[in-house]
């Protein structure tokens, strides 16, 4: 029991964050031959959703990340990548979305 308490205290103090990257999806290279990369800019957007005890009723954080990405570019967005990951915690976790792309202003 003493060993358990010591281990628990150690883990609590150190934090011991753990993460899980679920997948990364990449697409949108179809018209790449026509793109002048010197005029293109990298854009990215991130969003998070805090979940406590598994109680979550929507996935609007995905739409938020998407909208943030669109707001950064008035032109076309090529080479889009979307990553979904989770940061684990004590009785709660954080879902994260990262969307990146190459913006070509019109």
């Amino acid at each position: 029991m003493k060993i358990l308490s010591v281990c628990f205290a150690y883990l609590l103090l150190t934090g011991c964050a753990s993460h899980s990257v679920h997948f990364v999806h990449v697409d949108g290279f179809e018209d790449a031959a026509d793109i002048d990369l010197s005029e293109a800019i990298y854009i990215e957007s991130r969003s998070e959703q805090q979940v406590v005890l598994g109680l979550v009723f929507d996935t609007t954080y995905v739409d938020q990340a998407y909208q943030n990405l669109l707001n950064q570019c008035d032109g076309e967005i090529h080479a889009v990548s979307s990553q979904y990951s989770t940061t684990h915690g004590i009785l709660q976790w954080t879902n994260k979305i990262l969307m990146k792309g190459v913006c070509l202003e019109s």
Partner: protein
Amino acid sequence: MHRITVGFFASIVLTSCARLDHIHISDIDQSTGILTPISVAMNEQAIETSEVATLSTALVGVLLDSPKISENADELGDLIHLMHLGPRTGNPTSNDRYAENVLEQLYIQCPSGNITGLRSIRESTTYGPVSGEIVRIAAFCIH
């Protein structure tokens, strides 16, 4: 008895498995040029801490001949598992940024950016409670 226990744990650790979690295949255009395969793989060491805690506590209990320590093995594992709740793909890693530079790496391998046949793959190689979590993007560069 000790040799059998050590041998059992060693066999778990030494036997490796591969796992495929997610795959997406994009359009493949073979009509506009010669295709050269390219691949970007980002990996990170991962460890199932609750399993390691359970196994190591049980092993310590066996080696020290202490049933009291062995009894606490499962409890310790469950406690650690509760401290890392949430959706998982594979074993948890200590870093969630290892796969963020995928686009940049693709452009390094194919500077024109003229890419087709994109395959987004999430896989891992497991060695008992330890694994290598891999995000791999394979494609063809059109010349």
